[in-house]
């Protein structure tokens, strides 16, 4: 049994999780990373994607997160997400709306840099939808 550490998942509206967990896999902007107990202090921005939590009992729980960052400190891991929903509760319309917004962002982008960013977000969102459909 893996050792446990404190994990908090917070969105602006509420605190979703605050408990001892065994492992968390975070979708960061530069690739997924897993966090176990005593991870080195680390901070990363997150991309839209699925965050996986391995609970004490050995079950994986999945959450859809969008925009925000993960903060690994000696006290544990805190994920601050602009939006965080348990995978079972996501509405497809909501995601489609976000994709539409992202498409508009791409169309509205004035310079290359913003356009690149918007396109990245868009493709990440599409990945999430694909992943959800597959599941």
């Amino acid at each position, binding site marked *: 049994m893996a050792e446990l550490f404190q994990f908090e998942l917070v969105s602006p*509206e509420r605190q979703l999780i605050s408990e001892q967990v065994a492992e968390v896999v975070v979708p960061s902007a530069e690739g997924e990373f897993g966090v176990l107990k005593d991870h080195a202090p680390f901070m990363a921005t997150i991309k839209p994607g699925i965050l996986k939590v391995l609970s004490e009992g050995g079950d994986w729980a999945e959450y859809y997160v969008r925009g925000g*960052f993960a903060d690994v400190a000696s006290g544990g891991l805190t994920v601050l997400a602009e939006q965080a929903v348990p995978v079972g509760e996501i509405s497809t319309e909501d995601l489609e709306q976000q994709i539409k917004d992202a498409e508009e962002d791409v169309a509205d982008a004035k310079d290359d840099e913003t356009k690149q960013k918007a396109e990245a977000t868009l493709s990440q969102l599409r990945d999430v939808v694909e992943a959800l459909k597959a599941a």
Partner: protein
Amino acid sequence: MPSLKDLRNRIASVKATQKITKAMQMVAAAKLRRAQEAAEAARPYAERMGAVLANLAVAFEGRDDAPKLMSGTGNDQVHLLVVATAERGLCGGFNTNIAKLARDKARSLLADGKTVKIICVGKKGYDALKRELGQHVIKTVDLRSVKNVGFSDADNIGREVLSMFDNGEFDVCTLFYSTFKSVIAQDPTALQLIPASFEASEGNDSNGAHAVYEYEPDETEILADLLPRNISVQIFRALLENAASEQGARMSAMDNATRNAGEMIDKLTISYNRQRQAQITTELIEIISGAEAL
């Protein structure tokens, strides 16, 4: 001297008013609980955000490449005041207090020869400010159709503010709202958003505030990502605090009103009874003297 009928009518009308204020108090109490829960649920996020930013800010102190949102534009000629109030009245001094704080600030800025721009969130703030500062109000945000403030509402305002900042339309941004302390105490608060000010949370933070962090992507990019987000988060928090304060203020205002109505009814009832008795006495005297004359 009002007649008996007048008194009866007045008592009836005060009673009707009392019923309304009583109902409003109860509605406010129910809403208050929800608003308070929402405000408390949002606190961890805002606090965490503040802690992380304070951490990063230390790393950037005194560096030239610090983002403008943190270091400011270098001057303070144009001030943007974001005044968040309620959409509805009948909540005691709630709106007035926020408006007053904002107005005092605007006055002192104008006296110093600065330019003032105002964004009003909520109708009541605009109503209170338009007479004196109407020409400075550049935008009003209407949240009347919004029942429970969501993060997206705050985010929209935040984006607006940011795009103005990017276009160089102001140098300093201050947010006015009311901090919810308790049902009877709400503090009008001015919070400087841009350039961001952090309370240095130094000392022995249990999170290892000064541990060597690794950043991915690097600090600059994270900070560039976080600072704009922080604006929206702070606005969101302010809106939630405001919502709770508004209901609290309304609750105590309506409680007072109900009590005053009760006192008034008591007084009116006393004078009604006195007059009724006086009338009865007069009638009796008339009858008795009539009978004696026979």
